C-alpha cells in the first residue's frame, strides 16, 4: 500500500530504522514483539524482519515498555496493531483513546497501522475481546464513519482486519466480503488479511476458505496475519475453531497462505503468538517459513521464461 508522509514534524519521535523501500517492505516477515524475547532479538537479529505490537500496551506514560519499544524501533520497522478502538461498535469512538493512538503513531512512525472489524467496548464497559457485528447498511455506515475518524486523526490509511467469529446475526443482510469491499470503497482504508481468521470462520460457519480468499480484494491487502488456532465443539458436536494465538500456525493455514502469495504477490506477513509463548527460536522459525514461501514465489524474469 502507499504510505502517506508522516505528519506533525514538531512531535517527539523515536529515531530509528527507516521504512524499507516499497519492494523490500513487501517481502518482510515478522512476529509479535514480546518483552520476554527482547534480549534474544537484540542478540540474534532476524533478517528482513519487522515487529508488531498491540498499541494499548504502549499507552502508559513512560517506563520500560517505551524503552523496549524504542530499542526495537531503532533496528526494525514496526507495525502498530490496535485492538481496542471498537470500530464495529454502536457507541461513539472514545476520543481519549483515539488521541493516544494518534500520539503513538506520531511517536513511533510505524510502517503499518491496523485495527479490527470488531468491537470491544459498549456502554462504558470494556470487554477485552473482539466481538462480532451484523453486516448490513446501518453497521456499514457506522463502521465507515469510525474508520474515517481514525484515518483523519492519524493522517494515513488504516488497515482493517477481518475477524474470527463464532456466531452470525439474523440482522445481517450482506456477506462479510461484500461488507469489506464496500468499506474499502467508501473509506479508502487498506486491509489486513488474517488467513487464520478466514480458516476459523470457514470452519465455524460452513463455507470454503479458498472461495473466500479467491474473492478477497488482494490488491487492497497491506499486511497478512497468520496464527495458530485451537478447537472445541459446537452444540451439535461439530468442530468450532478458536482463534487462540497460542500455538504454531496450522499446515492448512500455511497452504492457504501459499495460494494467497502465489496470486497476490508478497506482503508484509506477521505470525501472531500471544499466549503460551514459545522460546524465541520457534517464533523466529515461524517467520522464516513465511519468508521462504514468499521467496519461493519470487520468480525472476529469466526463470519465468523457462517455466513458460
Amino acid at each position, binding site marked *: 500500500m502507499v504510505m502517506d508522509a508522516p505528519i506533525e514534524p514538531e512531535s517527539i519521535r523515536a529515531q530509528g530504522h527507516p521504512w524499507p523501500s516499497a519492494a523490500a517492505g513487501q517481502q518482510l516477515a515478522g512476529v509479535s514483539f514480546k518483552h520476554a524475547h527482547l534480549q534474544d532479538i537484540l542478540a540474534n537479529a532476524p533478517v528482513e524482519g519487522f515487529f508488531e505490537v498491540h498499541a494499548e500496551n504502549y499507552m502508559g506514560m513512560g517506563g520500560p515498555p*517505551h524503552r523496549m519499544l524504542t530499542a526495537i524501533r531503532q533496528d526494525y520497522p514496526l507495525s502498530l496493531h490496535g485492538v*481496542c478502538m471498537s470500530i464495529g461498535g454502536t457507541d461513539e469512538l472514545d476520543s481519549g483513546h483515539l488521541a493516544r493512538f494518534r500520539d503513538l503513531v506520531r511517536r513511533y512512525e510505524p510502517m503499518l497501522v491496523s485495527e479490527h472489524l470488531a468491537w470491544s467496548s459498549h456502554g462504558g464497559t470494556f470487554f477485552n475481546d473482539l466481538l462480532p457485528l451484523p453486516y448490513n447498511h446501518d453497521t456499514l455506515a457506522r463502521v465507515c464513519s469510525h474508520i474515517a475518524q481514525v484515518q483523519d486523526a492519524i493522517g494515513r490509511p488504516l488497515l482493517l482486519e477481518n475477524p474470527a467469529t*463464532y456466531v452470525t*446475526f*439474523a*440482522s445481517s443482510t450482506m456477506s462479510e466480503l461484500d461488507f469489506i469491499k464496500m468499506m474499502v470503497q467508501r473509506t479508502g482504508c487498506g486491509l489486513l488479511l488474517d488467513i487464520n481468521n478466514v480458516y476459523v470462520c470457514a470452519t465455524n460457519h460452513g463455507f470454503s476458505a479458498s472461495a473466500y480468499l479467491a474473492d478477497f480484494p488482494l490488491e487492497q491487502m497491506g499486511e497478512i496475519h497468520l496464527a495458530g488456532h485451537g478447537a472445541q*465443539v459446537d452444540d451439535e458436536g461439530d468442530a468450532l475453531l478458536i482463534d487462540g494465538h497460542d500455538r504454531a500456525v496450522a499446515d492448512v493455514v500455511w497452504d492457504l497462505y501459499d495460494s494467497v502469495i502465489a496470486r497476490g504477490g508478497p506482503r508484509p506477513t506477521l505470525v501472531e503468538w500471544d499466549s503460551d509463548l514459545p522460546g524465541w527460536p520457534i517464533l523466529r522459525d515461524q517467520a522464516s517459513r513465511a519468508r521462504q514461501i514468499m521467496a519461493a514465489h519470487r520468480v525472476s524474469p529469466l526463470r519465468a521464461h523457462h517455466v513458460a
Partner: protein
Amino acid sequence: MSREFLTCHLPYASSFSMGLMDPTLEPPDDVIAHADKGVTRRYNVYRNNVTVSLIDALAAIYPAVQRITGVEFFRAMARFHVRAAPPTSVLLLEYGRDFPDFIESYAYARDMPWLADVARIERAWLDAYHAADAAVLAVEALSAVDQALLTNLQFAPHPATRVLRSIYPVVTIFTMNKTDEPVSPIDLNKAEDALITRPDADVIVSRLPAGGAAFLLSLMQGATLGAAATAAFAEAPSFDLASNLGGMISAGVFSTIRHGG
C-alpha cells in the same frame, strides 16, 4: 417490558453485551449460526473469552497475591470481582484499582488480613512501571545547597514514587512472594511501610525505616525539609534524617529540588 421487546429493539451491541457477564441470560435472539445450528456453545466462547481474559489481566497485575492464595483461590476471587466491576477503560494497565478493597471485603480471604496491602503494593508497582519518564535527583544536587538553606528545601517526587503504609509486614510478604523462591515464617505483628520507586530501568520496592513514611509523605505534599523532619520526629523519635534522605535519593524517590518560601 418483556425481554423479547428489549432484545428486538436494542442495538446489537447492547443485546450482545448483556449476557457476556451474566451466564443466566440466553444468547440474544439476533445471534444465529448456519444450518439452524444452536448458538449456546458458540456464544459461550465470547463469555469465556471475556471473563477468562479479565481474570488473566488481574493475575498479571497481582502475581504475588496469586502466589499466596494459590491459582484456584485467586481465580475464583478474581471472577467475582470481574463480574462485579468489569473495566471501564480500554487500558488494562488501569484495571484492578479497586481489587485491593474487594480483597479486603472478600469473606474467604478474612484469615489473610494483610493480603489487601500486598495487592496495594502490586498495584503501585504497576503504576510505577508505567509512570512518566523523568531524571532522578542526583546525590550531588544536595551537596551544592548552602547548609543554611537546607531546611527550606522542597522536594518534587519522581512520577514513579509511591508510599504505602501498612500495619502488617507487607514488604516482607510481597518480596517473599515476588519470585518462586521458598518462603519462610515471619512475624505478622510487625508493621511495615513500603516505598515503590523506579530509579533507573526497573521498579524497586523497599522498606522505609521508622519515621520515613511520615517524612516522605510530608515532602510529597509540599512540606519543606524542616517541616517534614519535624513530622517524622513526632512520629518516631529515632528518625535518622541523614540516612533517610540519603537512602531516598539513591532509591530515586525525587526528581527535583527547589527553595521553598
